[in-house]
């Protein structure tokens, strides 16, 4: 089963940066960014998100979508409602920290881990300790 990731942010730079960071440890996993508005300002565009979901779903069985704050989430939920049913069935919105969650999911997907385990790891990734002192 091929799993792709979509990173949604208000900021194009942030979305691209997350993809850059995450891709480094996730060879063979398709990861796309969608962020910002057409005119370069901050924001999320449901139509652009739905197009990115559709394009990833054409070549993959599952599209895991990671979102930043506020309208990143609402716009992604809206994007789901714009999808054709066959695409919609492949897309999952993941309730996870953007950086930690997408990183965990990409590494797991790259290692061929099962979907349920990937989702569990991604959802818990933001809760891991960073400081142990």
């Amino acid at each position, binding site marked *: 089963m091929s799993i792709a990731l979509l990173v949604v942010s*208000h900021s194009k730079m942030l979305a691209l940066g997350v993809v850059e960071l995450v891709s480094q440890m996730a060879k063979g996993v398709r990861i796309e960014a969608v962020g910002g*508005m*057409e*005119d370069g*300002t*901050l*924001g*999320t*565009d*449901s*139509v*652009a998100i739905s197009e990115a979901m559709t394009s990833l779903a054409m070549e993959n069985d599952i599209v895991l979508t990671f979102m930043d*704050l*506020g*309208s990143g989430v*609402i*716009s992604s*939920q*809206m994007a789901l409602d*714009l999808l054709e049913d066959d695409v919609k069935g492949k897309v999952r919105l993941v309730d996870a920290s953007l950086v930690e969650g997408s990183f965990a999911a990409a590494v797991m997907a790259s290692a061929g881990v099962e979907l349920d385990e990937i989702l569990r790891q991604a959802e818990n990734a933001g809760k891991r300790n960073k400081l142990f002192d």
Partner: protein
Amino acid sequence: MPLHSKQMKEILLALADCYDQNKEYLTDLDNKIGDGDHGINLSRGYGAIRGKLLSASEDIDFNKLYKTICGMTLLSTVGGASGPLLGTFYMEAAKKCEPVFELTDANVVECFEAGLVGVMNRGKAVVGEKTMVDAMSPAVAVLRESIDAGKSLKEAFDLAKEVAFNAAVKTADYAATNGRASYLGERSIGTQDPGATSTALLFEIFASHLA
């Protein structure tokens, strides 16, 4: 008296001008308790609607007007949470109208009711959380009561406008528990909600453009 799609076009054009004029006011409110882009976002979104309306060579039916011209345009141009929220408002409204050029008063109210339900579902919002729903919900209820009581659409919107403005002002008295402002908690008290305010403006524009 039915609402004609030509009137609806004038209302939408007036709304675009209204949000241009109130861009700074709404953005100032949003700067205090949000991400400071509400006025800019609405001005850009309705500006895009204006562009589509002015470039259309023929009359546009209500279904297309709500679904494509308003709904899809706001989704792809607003940027903040208002994009999917208002986009949903219009797309749910569109489901209540056929491709017709006139809506009865009752149809107009049904569209607003469906839009409100759509916004509440999309934003997982209820009244009292300091969001646009706080103005929209009581205003739509007044539209329904007024039309059921045999009042004209103009009278209904005049009453709904009053209720929406009062509700928007009242949002200053309590803390946000939904949306970006909820990160501020108690510190959001004292500022009225930009979404509730822009919603009140929408009812005002309807009221002032109906005869």
